[in-house]
């Protein structure tokens, strides 16, 4: 008799998340090479520091809001470093660490949350789409871009992040399905941090794991320890390679936890016990890599200092966008009505 997997034609995700480095920093499978492990470590340490600095900036009133991803670095860094040069990344509001890892300058990454403009970097310069706020709506964009790349014969794969909550939206479903039917080179990375603001995963889905959603689209789903950067990197890289090779899309679920509040303006005591996050602190992605590599964050001290002070310096600069720009980008050429409104505003400000 054929196995269920053979019958389905796809691999069933495992209920236990794939792990290559355990909580104690012990290897639990075949690891990526040492250089990759060090890049993962370095990018996580820098990412954490960036994240902390961003949260601090909210307290100083320098950022309007910031959704921390502390504790989710293994997902954001592991998946992003798996990208090849020509690949594309589609981040959400929570994925500043991924964006910075991809090379977006920190101050540009913070534009949305700082409130100067809706997006602050050139997407084509980094192959990073603008951060997306309406949940799951960037997933079809990622599929379309991937399909376009394939139609053009380019060797490109696309990585799109979404949260556990976002998987409930219709657009997540439509994106999964289009990708599968078109065999588009996309990897859907679900950062399952187990909370959508105050709503726990149990009120979001009854799926065995979110990776199991892949079955209904006829694509592979992988359930990965989202606090293990080695596992995230390895599985995502395989999925991206497969996609580029014409093997089609995959879903990767990184099981992690939102240690911090949803954003700085959220108050977790309204919906969860402080103790709930404790077990997850013990699974910290950086701590286990410190142990695995026998390194600590200090090795990056200089780099961190440079990044942090550069960001501080940038944040001190006036990045105010001139009000004229309100009218400049609505269309390629402003309409007469926009020109009239621009003139009115100019007069008001004169």
């Amino acid at each position: 008799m054929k196995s269920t997997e053979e019958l389905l034609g796809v691999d069933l995700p495992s209920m236990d998340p794939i792990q290559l480095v355990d909580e104690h920093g012990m290897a639990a499978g075949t690891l990526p090479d040492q250089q990759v492990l060090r890049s993962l470590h370095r990018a996580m340490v820098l990412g954490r520091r960036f994240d902390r600095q961003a949260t601090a900036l909210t307290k100083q009133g320098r950022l309007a809001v910031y959704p921390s991803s502390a504790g989710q670095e293994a997902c954001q860094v592991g998946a992003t470093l798996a990208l090849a040069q020509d690949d594309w990344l589609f981040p959400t509001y929570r994925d500043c660490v991924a964006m910075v890892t991809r090379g977006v300058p920190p101050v540009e990454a913070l534009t949305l949350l700082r409130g100067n403009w809706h997006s602050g970097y050139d997407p084509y310069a980094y192959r990073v789409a603008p951060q997306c706020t309406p949940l799951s709506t960037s997933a079809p964009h990622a599929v379309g871009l991937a399909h376009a790349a394939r139609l053009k014969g380019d060797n490109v794969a696309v990585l799109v992040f979404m949260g556990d909550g976002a998987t409930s939206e219709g657009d997540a479903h439509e994106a999964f399905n289009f990708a599968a039917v078109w065999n588009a080179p996309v990897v859907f990375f679900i950062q399952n941090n187990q909370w959508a603001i105050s709503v726990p995963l149990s009120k979001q889905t009854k799926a065995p794991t979110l990776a199991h959603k892949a079955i209904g689209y006829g694509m592979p789903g992988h359930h990965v320890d989202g606090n293990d950067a080695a596992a995230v990197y390895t599985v995502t890289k395989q999925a991206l390679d497969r996609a580029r090779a014409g093997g089609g899309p995959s879903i990767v679920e990184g099981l992690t936890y939102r240690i911090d509040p949803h954003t700085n303006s959220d108050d977790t005591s309204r919906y969860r016990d402080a103790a709930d996050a404790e077990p997850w602190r013990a699974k910290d992605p950086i701590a286990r890599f410190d142990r695995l590599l026998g390194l600590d964050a200090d090795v990056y001290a200089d780099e961190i200092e440079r990044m942090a002070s550069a960001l501080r310096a940038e944040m001190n600069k006036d990045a105010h966008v001139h009000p004229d720009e309100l009218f400049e980008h609505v269309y390629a050429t402003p309409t007469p009505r926009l020109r009239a409104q621009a003139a009115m505003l100019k007069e008001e400000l004169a």
Partner: protein
Amino acid sequence: MTTQLNMAQALNRALKDAMTEDPSVVVFGEDVGPYGGVFTVTEGLTKQFGEDRCFDSPLAESGIVGTAVGMAMYGLRPVVEMQFDAFAYPAFEQITSHVAKMRNRTRGKVALPMVIRIPYGGGIGGVEHHGDSSETYYTHTPGLTVVTPGTTADAYSLLRSAIESPDPVIFMEPKSRYWSRADFDLTQRDPMNRAIVRKHGKDVTLLCYGSTVQTCLETAEAATEEGWDVEVVDLRSLSPLDEETVCASVRKTGRAVVVHESSMFSGYGAEVVATVSEHCFHWLEAPVLRVGGLDVPYPPKDLEEHQLPHPDRILDTIARLQWEDK
């Protein structure tokens, strides 16, 4: 006897009182349960009424509105929350093709007494998609009733009426006013479909709603310095529009400006202008003008001050009402 509350509390109180009086009222949406809603409007409801009366749903707005339709068909009175204006867009098909049409489709057999609460507008320094004014989309959809409170007292009274309405109501909450406190009488209930004159004046009428009611009252005050006696009409009900109250005011003053946050082009203000222009033609000393949001996507925090109607801009517009002909 009056109670002092801010607008969020007034809405919360309206939900509580409605749920107490009518066991068929249920509240659900994203983060409305234990969390109490991102604007605290549903605070304490799950605790007081239990998980069956106020609950979190999965994160999907079309699903929220669509399941509310089914609940209303079965005799419940669902009150659902869209977390922010732009996040009601995923529910657009459910709202336009079902919520608005069910009664008509069934020749009156199936009513949908339900309320869709939508915090709207800017002025709170939100990031992209957190400052849209979407009322025009709903007012243009026959079958929907669209109301919006401009004051804390109205927030209570209109939400109570919306929940009691036999028809689906889009209840737009001006989010920049959630924290406005006021003393008011909970037993005071005006008809939901009527506009109200908030300030009497004889020179010019400002037609406004939601957040711009306050802006217009401030403008009216500033206008006295210019020698204009401004009347301020709070529309309250956008659909239907209370033409009687509006036209009575404009016929008296002969001049009018519509003020709303929403971008102007093809926006709700145009309807008000068209209605007034048609019915008050012979009374008008000047064209009815609009002060609305600029015709741009809602801007980021740093620039939103330019987007929102402010007293100076309204005064500049009043100044254009051909006073020289007076």
